[in-house]
């Protein structure tokens, strides 16, 4: 690895900008995530800034079970992000659908729609746990990440199949 590459990867570790999207959460996880921006937790302390435009962000913090209405928008946001990009599923809903799993207009977890790098169960998650999740994401090595990516891509295929089945039923 050249020195430049090393510098860049150091930058990536130290400056993750995040974008937040609520894909049908109950607000619980959202307010707890926003809490992590405020004085008591202050994630700017570890270099994290919240950005409004997907183009600027590195990490998509996604809460909530994906509802049918938000699904397209979620994919769109994910596609708009410049790589390298990561996704953290914050909250039980975002991991598997949680209590809303099985509702008629809920897809399930975020990984039914886009690949997820870190799962953070909790209902609602504490802001500390959000910081911890970002930490774990940045410190998991890159090989790990690609492996996970492939895995969740596979999951995606599977779930898409099952979705088709679902929509057939409907």
């Amino acid at each position, binding site marked *: 690895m050249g020195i430049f590459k090393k510098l860049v990867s150091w930058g990536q570790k130290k400056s993750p900008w995040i974008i937040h999207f609520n894909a*049908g959460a*109950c607000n619980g996880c959202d307010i*707890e995530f926003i809490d992590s921006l*405020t004085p008591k937790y202050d994630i700017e302390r570890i270099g994290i800034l919240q950005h409004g435009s997907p183009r600027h962000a590195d990490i998509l913090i996604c809460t909530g079970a994906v509802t049918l209405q938000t699904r397209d*928008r979620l994919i769109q946001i994910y596609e708009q992000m410049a790589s390298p990009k990561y996704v953290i599923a914050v909250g039980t809903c975002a991991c598997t659908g949680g209590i809303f799993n099985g509702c008629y207009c*809920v897809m399930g977890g975020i990984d039914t729609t886009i690949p997820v790098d870190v799962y953070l169960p909790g209902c609602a998650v504490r802001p500390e746990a959000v910081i911890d999740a970002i930490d774990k994401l940045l410190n998991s090595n890159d090989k790990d990440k690609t492996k996970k990516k492939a895995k969740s891509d596979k999951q995606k295929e599977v779930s898409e199949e099952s979705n088709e089945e679902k929509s057939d039923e409907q």
Partner: protein
Amino acid sequence: MSDNSSNRIVIPLGPQHPALKEPGSFTLTLEGEKVVNAVIGIGYNHRGLEKALESRTYIQNLYMIERICGICSHTHSVAYCQAIEEMCGVEIPMRAKYIRVIIAELERLHSHLLWLGVAAHEIGFDTLFMYAWRDREMVLDMLAELCGNRVNYGINTLGGVRRDIDDNDAHEIKKILRVLHNQISYYLELATNEPTLIARLADVGKLNHDDALKFGAVGPVARAAGIANDVRKIEPYAAYDEVPVNVITDDHGDVLGRTLVRVKEMLESISIIRYCLDNLPAGEILAKVPRKVPAGEMISRTEAPRGENIHYINSDGSDIPYRIRVRAPSEANWHGMKHMLEGSFLADVPIAIAAIDPCYSCTDRAIFVNSDNGESRLYDWKGLREYSIKWHRDRGLNIADIQIPMAKNYIQIQRKTND
């Protein structure tokens, strides 16, 4: 900015937008910086909750109801629990009622502080946002100390509450409340004196007294328009019949008014919590509630931080509800939104939206029931329907010929309960 009317831009706001922490979409047509048309699209958060409630037991639903929304979760579960307790004919212990009131008021504190912060953020006053949320941490810590978790407290259960408050907790809470009281008084002073705040808040998102009535506004939005409507006062539930509650109103009818109402309500909440802690009756916190709820139906109302929250529960006698209907406060306030947005500046849109403290988690269609006599808690379906028809006819809308299909087994139950 030109006044050229051909120069109209249509901008979509949301569903993902930094001003909105939740998905909702506003399609705004702009003429220069002025909004000439607003189309509101909600339903992004529709999770089919009411349908899901019909397939779970009453106990399971308790937690689902709480997760209608993480911000006013307590108010929903109180409304749900007290409806079922009343259907089962269970009188819950006084201590439990007081604890419910304490948590409800703490929730109001956290919710209003949250609102204050978000509103400040919308108008770009990040310092105030940070301060308000810093102080909100204290409230969340109290809630966590009492209930276990910071959101979705899980303190209510059918027949009472799950966790008790001991003297130590009470002492700690009183200590924190003192600090909080100072902070909130400071915010009140700030809101009435800081010129940049007033410049951004006054005359924005106006909804006057008549319009507020017409659009069926509730909560601080209505109270800021001079409508003294507060379920805690007009139809006391839990321990509110014993606790002194002052209804705060204001006649500005704009965002500034809503800010003042909310900030003053926080001070009121603090004194309510103090009163409850001082007069906390001793005794049990839990009464036994059967798993199966007798057939019948019930409407229960609570005053959420954002206004009147209505739950309708219909039981067919099993351990699974036949139908649950939630009319949450934000939903009622959406109706006036278009009215508030049109003619305002683009820059004012976020704060105007934020001023009703919108949340999408619970927003849905509903029938607005307004009982001013203060006693009619129970409406049967027929009565409710007649009321609704009459209400609409009074306002020139005849929906009498719309037949509401009734399920077969429903009619049977109806007979049973009518007998």
